[in-house]
């Protein structure tokens, strides 16, 4: 990826207004730089000509790593992933050990958030519930990237009938909103009787891929008219190899941003489906199921609903913030302002 010079790097040097001999040069040619006393200082002098050229990603990383929004969201995401993978490290109590004696009791030693309506430890359930949400978000995003990304890239790059077919298919899918479509699929006998994390992932992916296909298609169309694509073709690289080696890497930016944000949206969608009783089965611990179960005790014990909802919202928020920060970092225009 980093070998590909992107237009952004060349830009600051190329359109210099007044060209003086020896003033503007590539790094490889020996040149005479007049001492300051001889020539007035110009903006060109600011360019550090000995520096290594930075790829778009390296530039983005430079501005990202000092951004508080990025640091916070990245740390939160790492924490959520750790909690999802090693829940036992964070909670000592057994989330499936529920005793009605403890029902709706407040916090006590070793049980910092108190107990649910069924007498289960809220803190342990919040910790163990992370896995389902993270799995659904992650795998739905991967599936959407594979299907939507491939279809979108091929349609945008080759155009023609493939593009026309994709446009019609995405039109049709856009007429059915994500939640509505997911509800229809989840109520099918085949899905309703085999509820699991995977049926939720498949359902969300079926209605999520058209958006990714559109974004990819747009990004690929924008990238394919660039000069380096024509250069690569003129040098004899086949059309498909050009797509894989040059066009796709250069159109990744918007795709990554949308994928990160969508990951959060899919987690919300899973919770909504579980809330409606059509998502994950009750046997799987998830924030959506716990929120749905907490409804009945909302008026007297809002804390039971609040904690899983808070965990869910913070997770989703960190993914959306990450996407937002990456978008700003990848957009040179917004960086300047």
């Amino acid at each position, binding site marked *: 990826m980093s070998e590909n010079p992107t237009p952004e790097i060349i830009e600051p040097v190329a359109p210099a207004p007044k060209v003086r001999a020896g003033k503007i040069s590539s790094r490889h040619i020996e040149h005479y730089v007049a001492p300051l006393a001889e020539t007035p200082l110009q903006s060109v002098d600011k360019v550090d000509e000995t520096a290594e050229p930075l790829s778009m990603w390296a530039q983005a990383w430079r501005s990202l790593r000092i951004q508080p929004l990025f640091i916070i969201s990245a740390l939160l995401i790492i924490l959520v992933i750790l909690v999802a993978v090693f829940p036992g490290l964070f909670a000592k109590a057994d989330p499936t050990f529920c005793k009605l004696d403890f029902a709706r009791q407040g916090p006590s030693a070793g049980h910092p958030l108190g107990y649910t309506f069924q007498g289960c430890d809220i803190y342990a359930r919040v910790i163990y519930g992370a896995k389902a949400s993270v799995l659904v978000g992650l795998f739905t995003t991967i599936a959407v990237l594979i299907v939507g990304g491939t279809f979108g890239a091929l349609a945008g790059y080759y155009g023609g009938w493939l593009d026309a077919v994709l446009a019609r298919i995405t039109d049709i899918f856009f007429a059915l909103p994500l*939640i509505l479509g997911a509800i229809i699929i989840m109520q099918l006998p085949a899905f309703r009787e085999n509820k699991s994390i995977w049926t939720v992932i498949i359902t969300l992916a079926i209605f999520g891929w058209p958006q990714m296909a559109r974004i990819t298609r747009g990004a690929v169309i924008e990238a394919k008219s660039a000069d380096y694509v024509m250069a690569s073709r003129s040098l004899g690289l086949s059309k498909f190899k050009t797509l894989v080696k040059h066009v796709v890497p250069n159109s990744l930016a918007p795709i990554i941003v949308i994928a990160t944000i969508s990951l959060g949206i899919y987690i919300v969608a899973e919770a909504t489906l579980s809330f409606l009783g059509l998502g994950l089965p009750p046997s799987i611990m998830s924030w959506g199921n716990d*929120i749905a179960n907490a409804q009945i005790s909302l008026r007297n014990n809002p804390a039971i609903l609040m904690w899983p909802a808070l965990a869910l919202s913070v997770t989703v928020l960190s993914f*959306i913030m990450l996407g937002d920060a990456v978008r700003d970092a990848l957009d040179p225009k917004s960086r300047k302002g």
Partner: protein
Amino acid sequence: MITFTLKRILQLIPVFFGATLLVYFLVFATPGDPIAALSGGKPMSPAVADALRAQYNLDQPFWVQYFLYLKNLVSFDLGQTFSGQQVSDVIARAMPVTARLAVMALAIEAVFGVIFGVFAGLKKGKLFDSTVLVASLLVIAVPTFVLGFVLQFVVGVKLSWAKPTVSSGAPWGDLILPAVVLGLVSLAYVIRLTRTSIIENKSADYVRTATAKGLSRRRVVVVHILRNSLIPVVTFLGADLGSLMGGAIVTEGIFNVPGIGNLLYQAILKGESATVVAVVSVLVLVFVIANLVVDLLYAWLDPRIRLV
């Protein structure tokens, strides 16, 4: 203009047929016997099952079924619910309620979304802008049903500023709180979209020209910057009307609104396929028409776009 409208309507026809075909296929032709689902999994006499199959045309090949369904759809014969009511009557009762709810939500989105978006965009990087940005992210991150519960509990029960559930007939006043909940997520998107669009346009050459020739700040903002920034916002709002009506499932459930979403949810739980397909077809139609209206609005917002 007329040619354009006709052309767009022609383009919408495949979308409508495609979407209804998809839903019809999902509901009627996927593995699992819909007739067995009708009896709630209990054994059913073969004679009754055959009669039901014939009634829903399930003994015909799939394409014949779909064709017969379309034929009925065109003549507004949407079939019957399990309790023997005409589906078209049930939809006609629920539709106005959801339409009111969705229009109110859309109005809240459009008015507050554009106002907040414009001020945030004009004062990019200032306190107001950052506050609005963080608040909008928060709203997107919190699931609608949690927002619904919390607002219902705080505004409806604790403060009693509004009725926690909607009374029968669903008058406008009762629908304000559900409409706010329904529109809140999209409101966040409208704010962000307007803000980005305003930031992009406010440094355009024509804005400098407008300021240079001595126009007041208000006129520059409203007529020049805002009007040119509205196209992506209007596109979003148009597409959103469809999602609002579909997304009303959750909101209508929480606030007990007797609308389309509630109808659809109950039908799904009961396995009333005729109602499910009919309601979804209506929703697709609304989405398709809303998009047509958006396309026609483009020409008014930007005279450079000619509708041919």
